[in-house]
Protein backbone atom coordinates (compact mmCIF):
# COMPACT_ATOMS: atom_id res chain seq x y z
CA UNK A 1 0.00 0.00 0.00
CA UNK A 2 1.26 3.45 -0.82
CA UNK A 3 1.71 5.93 1.99
CA UNK A 4 -1.32 8.24 1.79
CA UNK A 5 -0.12 10.73 4.43
CA UNK A 6 0.30 13.52 1.90
CA UNK A 7 -2.66 12.51 -0.27
CA UNK A 8 -5.72 12.54 2.00
CA UNK A 9 -8.71 10.50 0.92
CA UNK A 10 -10.92 13.57 0.49
CA UNK A 11 -13.94 11.64 -0.69
CA UNK A 12 -14.03 9.31 2.35
CA UNK A 13 -16.64 6.56 2.23
CA UNK A 14 -18.19 7.97 -0.95
CA UNK A 15 -14.78 7.64 -2.58
CA UNK A 16 -14.96 3.90 -1.90
CA UNK A 17 -18.49 3.35 -3.13
CA UNK A 18 -19.16 5.87 -5.88
CA UNK A 19 -17.80 5.41 -9.36
CA UNK A 20 -18.41 8.99 -10.45
CA UNK A 21 -17.64 9.42 -14.12
CA UNK A 22 -15.24 6.48 -14.10
CA UNK A 23 -16.07 3.37 -16.05
CA UNK A 24 -17.32 -0.07 -15.17
CA UNK A 25 -13.86 -1.02 -13.86
CA UNK A 26 -14.37 1.48 -11.03
CA UNK A 27 -17.49 -0.38 -9.92
CA UNK A 28 -15.63 -3.69 -10.21
CA UNK A 29 -13.13 -2.15 -7.76
CA UNK A 30 -15.95 -1.32 -5.34
CA UNK A 31 -17.47 -4.78 -5.70
CA UNK A 32 -14.03 -6.34 -5.22
CA UNK A 33 -13.68 -4.57 -1.88
CA UNK A 34 -17.21 -5.40 -0.71
CA UNK A 35 -16.85 -9.09 -1.62
CA UNK A 36 -13.41 -9.16 0.01
CA UNK A 37 -14.75 -7.78 3.29
CA UNK A 38 -17.68 -10.21 3.19
CA UNK A 39 -15.40 -13.17 2.52
CA UNK A 40 -13.08 -12.15 5.37
CA UNK A 41 -15.97 -11.92 7.85
CA UNK A 42 -17.29 -15.31 6.73
CA UNK A 43 -13.81 -16.87 6.79
CA UNK A 44 -13.13 -15.91 10.43
CA UNK A 45 -16.43 -17.53 11.48
CA UNK A 46 -15.76 -20.51 9.19
CA UNK A 47 -12.46 -21.24 10.98
CA UNK A 48 -14.26 -21.40 14.33
CA UNK A 49 -17.23 -23.49 13.12
CA UNK A 50 -15.21 -26.05 11.14
CA UNK A 51 -12.65 -26.48 13.93
CA UNK A 52 -15.32 -28.58 15.67
CA UNK A 53 -14.18 -31.57 13.56
CA UNK A 54 -11.12 -31.82 15.81
CA UNK A 55 -13.40 -32.96 18.68
CA UNK A 56 -15.05 -35.82 16.77
CA UNK A 57 -18.26 -36.69 15.00
CA UNK A 58 -20.70 -35.54 17.72
CA UNK A 59 -19.16 -32.07 17.94
CA UNK A 60 -19.08 -31.85 14.13
CA UNK A 61 -22.70 -32.91 13.71
CA UNK A 62 -23.78 -30.46 16.44
CA UNK A 63 -21.89 -27.60 14.78
CA UNK A 64 -23.34 -28.41 11.35
CA UNK A 65 -26.85 -28.66 12.83
CA UNK A 66 -26.49 -25.05 14.01
CA UNK A 67 -25.80 -23.81 10.47
CA UNK A 68 -28.51 -25.59 8.49
CA UNK A 69 -31.67 -24.12 7.02
CA UNK A 70 -32.61 -22.07 3.99
CA UNK A 71 -31.07 -18.84 5.34
CA UNK A 72 -27.68 -20.52 5.69
CA UNK A 73 -27.96 -22.13 2.24
CA UNK A 74 -28.66 -18.71 0.74
CA UNK A 75 -25.78 -17.24 2.76
CA UNK A 76 -23.39 -19.93 1.54
CA UNK A 77 -24.48 -19.33 -2.04
CA UNK A 78 -23.72 -15.62 -1.61
CA UNK A 79 -20.28 -16.57 -0.26
CA UNK A 80 -19.74 -18.81 -3.31
CA UNK A 81 -20.83 -15.99 -5.66
CA UNK A 82 -18.56 -13.51 -3.83
CA UNK A 83 -15.65 -15.94 -4.16
CA UNK A 84 -16.32 -16.49 -7.88
CA UNK A 85 -16.32 -12.75 -8.57
CA UNK A 86 -13.42 -11.88 -6.25
CA UNK A 87 -11.24 -14.66 -7.71
CA UNK A 88 -11.65 -13.91 -11.41
CA UNK A 89 -11.59 -10.14 -10.88
CA UNK A 90 -8.45 -10.61 -8.77
CA UNK A 91 -6.81 -12.37 -11.71
CA UNK A 92 -7.78 -9.41 -13.90
CA UNK A 93 -6.23 -6.98 -11.40
CA UNK A 94 -2.98 -8.98 -11.36
CA UNK A 95 -2.87 -9.02 -15.19
CA UNK A 96 -3.49 -5.26 -15.35
CA UNK A 97 -0.93 -4.57 -12.61
CA UNK A 98 1.65 -6.52 -14.60
CA UNK A 99 0.83 -4.40 -17.65
CA UNK A 100 -0.95 -7.11 -19.62
CA UNK A 101 -4.23 -6.59 -21.48
CA UNK A 102 -4.04 -2.78 -21.27
CA UNK A 103 -2.47 -2.14 -24.68
CA UNK A 104 0.95 -0.87 -25.63
CA UNK A 105 2.09 2.66 -24.76
CA UNK A 106 1.49 5.12 -27.62
CA UNK A 107 2.45 8.72 -28.35
CA UNK A 108 -0.01 11.19 -26.77
CA UNK A 109 -1.16 12.63 -30.11
CA UNK A 110 -4.53 14.37 -30.43
CA UNK A 111 -7.22 12.99 -30.56
CA UNK A 112 -6.05 11.20 -27.43
CA UNK A 113 -6.96 7.53 -26.98
CA UNK A 114 -7.67 5.99 -23.61
CA UNK A 115 -6.41 2.56 -22.53
CA UNK A 116 -9.85 1.88 -21.04
CA UNK A 117 -10.98 0.56 -24.43
CA UNK A 118 -8.00 -1.81 -24.43
CA UNK A 119 -8.83 -3.34 -21.05
CA UNK A 120 -12.63 -3.30 -21.38
CA UNK A 121 -12.77 -6.75 -23.11
CA UNK A 122 -10.92 -8.24 -20.14
CA UNK A 123 -13.42 -6.67 -17.71
CA UNK A 124 -16.33 -8.03 -19.75
CA UNK A 125 -14.69 -11.46 -19.93
CA UNK A 126 -14.26 -11.44 -16.14
CA UNK A 127 -17.92 -10.66 -15.59
CA UNK A 128 -19.03 -13.36 -18.03
CA UNK A 129 -16.78 -15.97 -16.39
CA UNK A 130 -17.92 -14.95 -12.89
CA UNK A 131 -21.52 -15.15 -14.09
CA UNK A 132 -21.01 -18.67 -15.48
CA UNK A 133 -19.46 -19.81 -12.18
CA UNK A 134 -22.36 -18.29 -10.22
CA UNK A 135 -24.86 -20.07 -12.49
CA UNK A 136 -23.01 -23.39 -12.01
CA UNK A 137 -23.05 -22.79 -8.25
CA UNK A 138 -26.73 -21.91 -8.34
CA UNK A 139 -27.51 -25.17 -10.14
CA UNK A 140 -25.58 -27.11 -7.53
CA UNK A 141 -27.02 -25.23 -4.55
CA UNK A 142 -30.67 -25.09 -5.53
CA UNK A 143 -31.56 -27.45 -8.39
CA UNK A 144 -29.40 -30.57 -8.49
CA UNK A 145 -29.99 -33.24 -5.83
Amino acid sequence: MLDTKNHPNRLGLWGWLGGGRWGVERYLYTLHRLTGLGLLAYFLLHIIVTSSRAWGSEAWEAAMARVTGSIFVLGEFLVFAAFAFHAVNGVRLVLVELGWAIGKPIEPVYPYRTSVHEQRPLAIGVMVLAGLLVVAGGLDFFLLP
Partner: protein
Amino acid sequence: MRDQRLWTWHVLAGLVILVFLGLHMAIMHLDALLGIFNPAGDHPIAWENVVARAKLGFFTFSYIVLLGAALFHGLYGLRNILFELNPGAGLRKGLNAALTAVGVVMFAFGAWAAWAASALARTL
Protein backbone atom coordinates in the same frame (compact mmCIF):
# COMPACT_ATOMS: atom_id res chain seq x y z
CA MET B 1 9.80 -0.59 0.59
CA ARG B 2 8.16 -2.60 3.35
CA ASP B 3 4.70 -1.96 1.94
CA GLN B 4 5.90 -2.89 -1.54
CA ARG B 5 7.12 -6.23 -0.16
CA LEU B 6 3.86 -6.80 1.73
CA TRP B 7 1.86 -5.97 -1.42
CA THR B 8 3.84 -8.57 -3.38
CA TRP B 9 3.05 -11.15 -0.69
CA HIS B 10 -0.60 -10.04 -0.85
CA VAL B 11 -0.72 -10.78 -4.60
CA LEU B 12 1.15 -14.08 -4.24
CA ALA B 13 -1.19 -15.12 -1.41
CA GLY B 14 -4.11 -14.35 -3.72
CA LEU B 15 -2.75 -16.78 -6.31
CA VAL B 16 -2.32 -19.50 -3.65
CA ILE B 17 -5.91 -18.88 -2.53
CA LEU B 18 -7.12 -19.08 -6.12
CA VAL B 19 -5.75 -22.64 -6.38
CA PHE B 20 -6.59 -24.06 -2.94
CA LEU B 21 -9.86 -22.22 -2.30
CA GLY B 22 -10.89 -22.99 -5.87
CA LEU B 23 -10.37 -26.69 -5.11
CA HIS B 24 -12.17 -26.35 -1.76
CA MET B 25 -15.15 -24.60 -3.36
CA ALA B 26 -15.31 -27.21 -6.14
CA ILE B 27 -15.35 -30.04 -3.59
CA MET B 28 -17.80 -28.45 -1.16
CA HIS B 29 -20.15 -26.49 -3.43
CA LEU B 30 -19.99 -28.09 -6.88
CA ASP B 31 -20.37 -31.61 -5.50
CA ALA B 32 -23.47 -32.46 -7.54
CA LEU B 33 -21.74 -31.36 -10.75
CA LEU B 34 -18.22 -32.66 -10.08
CA GLY B 35 -18.47 -35.14 -7.18
CA ILE B 36 -14.77 -35.10 -6.31
CA PHE B 37 -13.14 -36.08 -2.99
CA ASN B 38 -16.40 -37.18 -1.43
CA PRO B 39 -15.86 -40.96 -1.37
CA ALA B 40 -18.79 -41.67 0.95
CA GLY B 41 -21.22 -39.99 -1.44
CA ASP B 42 -23.92 -38.04 0.34
CA HIS B 43 -23.17 -34.40 1.24
CA PRO B 44 -19.56 -33.12 1.33
CA ILE B 45 -19.98 -32.16 5.01
CA ALA B 46 -21.09 -35.70 6.00
CA TRP B 47 -18.74 -36.91 8.76
CA GLU B 48 -17.55 -39.86 6.62
CA ASN B 49 -16.39 -37.48 3.88
CA VAL B 50 -14.75 -35.17 6.42
CA VAL B 51 -12.80 -38.13 7.84
CA ALA B 52 -11.84 -39.43 4.38
CA ARG B 53 -10.36 -36.05 3.43
CA ALA B 54 -8.68 -35.58 6.82
CA LYS B 55 -6.86 -38.91 6.35
CA LEU B 56 -5.15 -37.51 3.24
CA GLY B 57 -2.04 -35.52 4.10
CA PHE B 58 -2.60 -33.32 1.08
CA PHE B 59 -5.78 -31.88 2.55
CA THR B 60 -4.20 -31.12 5.93
CA PHE B 61 -1.35 -29.40 4.08
CA SER B 62 -3.70 -27.47 1.78
CA TYR B 63 -5.95 -26.36 4.68
CA ILE B 64 -3.00 -24.97 6.63
CA VAL B 65 -1.48 -23.23 3.58
CA LEU B 66 -4.89 -21.83 2.63
CA LEU B 67 -5.49 -20.71 6.22
CA GLY B 68 -2.25 -18.72 6.32
CA ALA B 69 -2.62 -17.28 2.81
CA ALA B 70 -6.27 -16.29 3.28
CA LEU B 71 -5.71 -14.71 6.71
CA PHE B 72 -2.78 -12.66 5.41
CA HIS B 73 -4.56 -11.68 2.18
CA GLY B 74 -7.79 -10.73 3.95
CA LEU B 75 -6.35 -8.92 6.96
CA TYR B 76 -3.76 -7.05 4.87
CA GLY B 77 -6.55 -6.04 2.47
CA LEU B 78 -8.62 -4.78 5.44
CA ARG B 79 -5.56 -2.87 6.71
CA ASN B 80 -5.16 -1.16 3.33
CA ILE B 81 -8.81 -0.11 3.29
CA LEU B 82 -8.65 1.25 6.84
CA PHE B 83 -5.37 3.09 6.22
CA GLU B 84 -6.99 4.95 3.32
CA LEU B 85 -8.93 6.88 5.97
CA ASN B 86 -5.61 8.34 7.13
CA PRO B 87 -5.62 7.30 10.79
CA GLY B 88 -3.03 8.91 13.03
CA ALA B 89 0.29 7.25 13.75
CA GLY B 90 -0.92 5.83 17.07
CA LEU B 91 -4.04 4.35 15.54
CA ARG B 92 -1.99 2.87 12.70
CA LYS B 93 0.23 1.13 15.21
CA GLY B 94 -2.80 -0.12 17.10
CA LEU B 95 -4.47 -1.40 13.92
CA ASN B 96 -1.27 -3.16 12.85
CA ALA B 97 -0.96 -4.82 16.24
CA ALA B 98 -4.65 -5.81 16.40
CA LEU B 99 -4.80 -7.25 12.88
CA THR B 100 -1.53 -9.11 13.39
CA ALA B 101 -2.82 -10.54 16.67
CA VAL B 102 -6.08 -11.67 15.03
CA GLY B 103 -4.12 -13.31 12.21
CA VAL B 104 -1.66 -15.12 14.50
CA VAL B 105 -4.34 -16.36 16.92
CA MET B 106 -6.69 -17.54 14.14
CA PHE B 107 -3.84 -19.23 12.29
CA ALA B 108 -2.64 -21.05 15.41
CA PHE B 109 -6.19 -22.20 16.24
CA GLY B 110 -7.10 -23.21 12.68
CA ALA B 111 -3.80 -25.01 12.06
CA TRP B 112 -4.17 -26.88 15.35
CA ALA B 113 -7.74 -27.90 14.37
CA ALA B 114 -6.60 -29.16 10.95
CA TRP B 115 -3.73 -31.14 12.50
CA ALA B 116 -5.90 -32.53 15.34
CA ALA B 117 -8.67 -33.54 12.91
CA SER B 118 -6.11 -35.32 10.75
CA ALA B 119 -4.67 -37.17 13.77
CA LEU B 120 -8.18 -38.14 14.90
CA ALA B 121 -9.17 -39.36 11.41
CA ARG B 122 -6.13 -41.65 11.22
CA THR B 123 -7.27 -43.47 14.37
CA LEU B 124 -10.73 -44.21 12.91
